[in-house]
């Protein structure tokens, strides 16, 4: 059987970016914090641009621990949803029309989330990446790390457990 030609690069990129954009921009809380995602192939980096409303301690000043928590949890949920949808996106099975009508795929639900605060979050942009360490039909485990100016000096790390949305067969 002849191998089918791969899709043109623009088509592939457009499909990936549209799926990612729908996941990220459809959630009001992610918009409120101002989180964006940078994509290189299937690797995602979450970006939290600095804003005055993210400050927790105005005297230092430092980013609020709750903002750090929300940022890491968002990175974990989007990273997990992205990894679980990847095969469908690549195969063109992902329903783009549903997306443009504002129907998001069901997102994983957080069961628990444990954060370590390693340094205070400085008043500047922050970045985070998630690693799915276990992804089953029902449960998943994800680790997340966030940093600011220096990649090898994270200011927070987290581990969480998630309940995967039921897949309709």
């Amino acid at each position, binding site marked *: 059987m002849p191998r089918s030609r791969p899709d043109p690069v623009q088509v592939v990129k457009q499909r990936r970016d549209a799926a990612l954009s729908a996941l990220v921009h459809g959630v009001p809380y992610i918009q409120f914090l101002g989180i964006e995602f940078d994509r290189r192939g299937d690797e995602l980096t979450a970006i939290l641009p600095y804003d005055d409303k993210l400050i927790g301690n105005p005297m230092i000043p430092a980013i609020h*621990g709750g903002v750090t928590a929300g940022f890491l949890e968002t990175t974990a949920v989007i990273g997990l949803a992205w990894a679980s949808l990847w095969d469908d996106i690549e195969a063109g099975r992902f329903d783009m029309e549903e997306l443009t009508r504002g129907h998001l795929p069901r997102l994983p639900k957080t069961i*628990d989330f444990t954060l370590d605060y390693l340094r205070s979050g400085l008043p500047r942009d922050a970045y985070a990446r998630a690693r799915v360490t276990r992804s089953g039909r029902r449960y998943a485990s994800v680790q997340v790390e966030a940093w600011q100016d220096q990649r090898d000096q994270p200011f927070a790390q987290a581990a969480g457990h998630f309940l995967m949305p039921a897949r309709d067969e």
Partner: protein
Amino acid sequence: MQGDKSKFAEQFINLIPHCQALGMKLTGIGDGMAEMELPYSEQIVGDPETGVVHGGAVSALMDTCCGAAAMSHPSSPSGTATIDLRIDYMRAATPGQAIRTRAECYHITRSVAFVRATALDDDTEQPVATATGAFTVERK
């Protein structure tokens, strides 16, 4: 004396920009206990189809309330910072309802304050989330 510290903690929390942005309010504080409230708003929704609040906003409420409880303990001289925080999500908060949390600093050493908290909506029988955390005890 205790009253002064509670007043200080209250003023401090009401000045936190992120708490102001979320409309979070301190409703009670003293002797290692704190109570806070997060009103429902569209901007903190995590699931646009159901209107359920995002876990991150609940985390922000829990973190602030646990920190306030640690600061208000009689053996805590001043400020605090979160060392770690674990949040367990029991159920989705009901859309449209405020989330209230109560935190208790149940043990404190010279270096560490141990705190736990519960978050509830109008159904006070079943918690929305619980949290446990360790906080620093700043030296004077």
